């Protein structure tokens, strides 16, 4: 019987709730593992889960300097979509979408995946042409996309001001109905429990301070809880990739760390039942199941490792939200926070073997790491287990930048501000 089910709920309800076990153990580090995953966030935990489930590799440790799910997995705006233009991204993110669709069942953990749709507004005729092109590219490979007229948008999202203050009228939009949101913390906890039950050790409060090496080869990690040897060391530490790679004497990467702010308002009655993005600026907003408006915009734009942002972006994001939904202008903000993004120079991720023997690297998620969580772990686990990438992540190499094979979704050239 599944650990969480209506029967286990009832059985515990009629006793004194004695049977619940912690979602994961708190083991002491073993001296050696087959695989050590550095980073107990969404991607590290899903990697551990798929290593155990898909590849039968269970002698694995996840090493986390704080507590599980402390970083970006708990700091995002929970949006999930696969509406990409370039085939490399399309196949990867669509694989992620398919994993999302079965994730709660697979993990026996309610991740509250809600396919409420994602509507991208076109605020100029050329933007609508661009969405038509992107939507056609998506449909060509079997991903759902629909182009909408302003009338259809009016019916789809009645709360929206189609004139957007008169300055940015809505010319149409593209909707992906299978897109949506999920409960981010549950994703981390579900993966952690799934991996733990298969034998993976979760080592919290265990900061990596260096790598064990045999010549070029990485043979383990030095941590605040002692040395841990490993046949394979996998790195999935998002914004802190640069720091960790410096411990392995790799000084430069095609990555900059930037802060991305997110915001949530006080709870409101049901107001909108989709994810919507503003085309004339950069804003994405949805309403959580608790009723708060969850939204975000651009990164602050300068290098930083501080998990807090500055006021110009706050003002920018608020003005865009109030332009789209004038009725929200007087809604109070409940909280805002920042997460450190690993901004790659072409806006696409890196999931690869290397750069040193015995090492595996997962980074470069820019704004979009949350929706990628299942496929990132799935592909990273494949890459670690078989020492070669799966076709879904074969293009996400580290050396693509120097080989002229960048995956530049916007055709914008090298900048750490893409997504």
């Amino acid at each position, binding site marked *: 019987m599944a650990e969480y089910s209506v029967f286990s709920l009832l059985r515990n309800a009629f006793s004194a709730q004695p049977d619940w076990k912690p979602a994961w153990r708190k083991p002491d580090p073993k001296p050696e593992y087959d695989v050590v995953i550095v980073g107990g966030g969404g991607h590290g935990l899903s990697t551990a889960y798929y290593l155990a489930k898909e590849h039968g590799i269970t002698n694995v440790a996840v090493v986390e300097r704080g507590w599980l799910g402390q970083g970006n997995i708990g700091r995002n705006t929970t949006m999930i979509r696969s509406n990409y233009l370039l085939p490399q991204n399309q196949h990867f993110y669509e694989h992620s979408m398919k994993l999302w669709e079965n994730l709660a069942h697979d993990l026996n953990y309610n991740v509250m995946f809600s396919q409420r749709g994602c509507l991208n507004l076109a605020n100029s005729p050329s933007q609508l042409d661009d969405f038509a092109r992107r939507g056609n590219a998506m449909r060509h490979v079997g991903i759902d996309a629909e182009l909408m007229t302003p009338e259809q948008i009016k019916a789809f999202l009645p709360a929206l001001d189609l004139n957007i203050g008169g300055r940015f009228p809505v010319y149409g939009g593209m909707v992906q109905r299978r897109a949506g949101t999920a409960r981010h913390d549950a994703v981390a906890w579900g993966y952690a429990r799934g991996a733990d039950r298969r034998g993976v050790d979760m080592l919290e409060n265990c900061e990596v301070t260096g790598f064990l090496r045999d010549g070029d080869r990485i043979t383990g990690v030095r941590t605040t809880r002692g040395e841990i040897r490993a046949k394979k060391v996998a790195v999935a530490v998002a914004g802190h990739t640069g720091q960790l790679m410096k411990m392995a004497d790799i000084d430069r*990467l095609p990555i*900059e760390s930037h802060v991305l702010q997110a915001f949530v308002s006080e709870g409101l009655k049901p107001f909108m039942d989709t994810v919507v993005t503003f085309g004339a600026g950069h804003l994405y907003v949805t309403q959580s199941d608790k009723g708060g408006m969850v939204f975000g915009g651009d990164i602050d734009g300068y*290098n*930083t*490792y*501080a998990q807090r942002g*500055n006021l110009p972006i706050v003002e920018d994001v608020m003005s865009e939200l109030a332009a789209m939904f004038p009725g929200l202008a007087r809604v109070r903000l409940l909280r805002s926070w920042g997460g450190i993004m690993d901004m790659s*120079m072409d806006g696409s991720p890196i999931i690869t073997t290397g750069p040193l023997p015995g090492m595996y690297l997962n980074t470069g998620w820019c704004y979009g790491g949350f929706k990628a969580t299942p496929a990132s772990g799935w592909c990273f686990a494949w890459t670690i287990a078989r020492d070669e990438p799966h076709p879904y992540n074969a293009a996400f190499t580290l050396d693509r*930048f120097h080989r002229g094979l960048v995956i530049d979704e916007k055709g914008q050239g090298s900048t750490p501000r893409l997504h």
Partner: protein
Amino acid sequence: MLITCPYCGPRDVIEFTYQGDANRTRPDPASTDQAAWNVYTYDRVNTLGDHAEYWQHSGGCRSHLKLVRSTLTHAISSTAFVRDHGEKKSASRRKPGAAT
């Protein structure tokens, strides 16, 4: 965040435009060294701590500035005009208006 422009004094960050990492050197424009251009275009040191970087006071005197700013605390320890740093100007043609 306040940035003290050497010409205008302390001003809000909204008046400034970030121009990126100053820890890299652009190859001579006439250079055909592909590896050097790749490193300049794509690779970053991504410093944790004091970070040398360019800003322009685009909403003020329009000077190009070179700052040393902590990426952990946002505290700025040094601000100067880019040209005062005595960096050698390339003899070759530069884009008009570009920082040295």
